């Protein structure tokens, strides 16, 4: 990671959907290059080391001991108690693919997307959720009051409120490790490099290369997910190479940061409120019957 100083002085932005590096818009003067994850699910062996390493590092509690019957997935999904989650999908190769119709067992490690336009961050009333100097999104557990707003705001179902504790938790992209110049725990442990960490721009290039490689090898089902800065969240800081439709892995096919519609929402609310005032006025001052 290198300091990006070239872009100073920083533009102070108030726009909701700023482009470019999100750390710019959030007051970091000399911030670092934006980093993230490229999770290449085509090499994931479903070992779940990422889940465990994350819990060990971050002291995340276990998620209970229940057999779900969902293939080898027994943690079920991301939540306040599971910040990396490995999905297991038993399916068949698409007809167009190299392995025509063969049984496939897809495994994919999901994580917070560290969205460029992060709904969780936008809606948090306390400022517990912040953008960091790395362009990532973290919850500050000393601030969060457990209002729960971030939970339904996230279009990916990432963040969750922890029972008994009452606060919201999610992947911090190992903020404390990044600050010490270390790799995130999950990326460090991943045996097959399915989880790749680095500057986002590099990762995008790597991902493109890998996608081409797979497609040349006849894996027509390979596609990138979340890497496009034009998508509904302005591009994910953690994006994926998938071998099937996103929803097959439990991911939304076209996620949108809800705050994109916030101006429109406020306008409608203002009209509604004004309407309420007008109605009331009419009720009091209108012609008496």
């Amino acid at each position: 990671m290198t300091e990006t100083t070239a872009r100073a002085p920083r533009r102070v932005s108030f726009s909701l959907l700023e482009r470019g590096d999100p750390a710019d818009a959030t007051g970091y003067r000399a911030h670092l290059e934006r980093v993230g994850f490229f999770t290449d699910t085509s090499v994931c062996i479903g070992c779940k080391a990422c889940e465990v390493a994350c819990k060990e590092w971050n002291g995340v509690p276990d998620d209970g001991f229940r057999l779900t019957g969902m293939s080898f997935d027994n943690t079920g999904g991301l939540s306040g108690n599971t910040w990396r989650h490995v999905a297991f999908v038993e399916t068949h190769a698409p007809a167009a693919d190299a392995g025509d119709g063969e049984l496939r067992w897809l495994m994919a490690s999901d994580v917070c997307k560290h969205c460029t336009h992060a709904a969780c961050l936008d809606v948090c009333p306390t400022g517990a959720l912040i953008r960091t100097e790395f362009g990532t999104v973290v919850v500050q557990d000393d601030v969060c009051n457990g209002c729960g707003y971030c939970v339904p705001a996230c279009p990916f179902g990432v963040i969750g409120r922890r029972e008994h504790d009452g606060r919201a938790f999610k992947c911090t992209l190992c903020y404390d490790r990044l600050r010490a110049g270390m790799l995130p725990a999950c990326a460090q442990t991943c045996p097959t490099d399915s989880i790749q960490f680095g500057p986002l721009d590099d990762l995008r290039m790597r991902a493109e290369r890998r996608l081409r490689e797979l497609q040349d090898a006849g894996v027509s089902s390979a596609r990138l997910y979340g890497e496009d800065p034009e998508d509904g969240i302005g591009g994910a800081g953690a994006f994926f190479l998938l071998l099937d439709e996103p929803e097959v892995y439990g991911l939304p096919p076209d996620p949108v940061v809800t705050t994109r519609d916030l101006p429109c929402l406020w306008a409608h609310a203002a009209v509604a409120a004004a309407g309420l005032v007008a109605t009331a006025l009419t009720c009091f001052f209108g012609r008496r019957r």
Partner: protein
Amino acid sequence: MPGTVRSWPVLRQWRRDPSARGVAARSARTGDRVARTRDVDRVAKSVCPYCAVGCGQDIYVKGGRIVQIEGDADSPVSRGRLCPKGAATLQLTTGENRLSKVLYRRPHASAFEELDLDTAMDMVADRVVATRRATFAWEDEGRRVRRTMGIASLGGATLDNEENYLMKKLYTALGALQIENQARI
């Protein structure tokens, strides 16, 4: 203004971070956060205790306590990576499900009781001596055997070479030969 008020983010936010989604909303604690492995007293070089791949581990020690165990990036075997078991080594070794007291069950008793380590060691030494004495055989069907079939041992694959060595050495000197480990199974 008193400091507490001045550090009130709502006042800070208007300077650099008007939407209060970044630097202004950062708490002092967040500002200080850094990996707990950074200021440790020691890093012990180690090896994963689970399987025979032999992945390298770094054990971070602070104040006499282990605060983190993770893959050793220097290892040509594992390049810093660990599988879920290796990654769970911290919980394995420092978790609350590990016992730390000697337990003893008397014949016919329905529960364990605690026993002093020294006493327990002495009792086991007595048992070994007595059982050996009672079962020692110089011969079997006229052939010299110089052994006891009264004492057996199982285990070794999770242990260190040095431990296996002392075990084999001691048992052999005692004449015990039903010494086995996981290699058989």
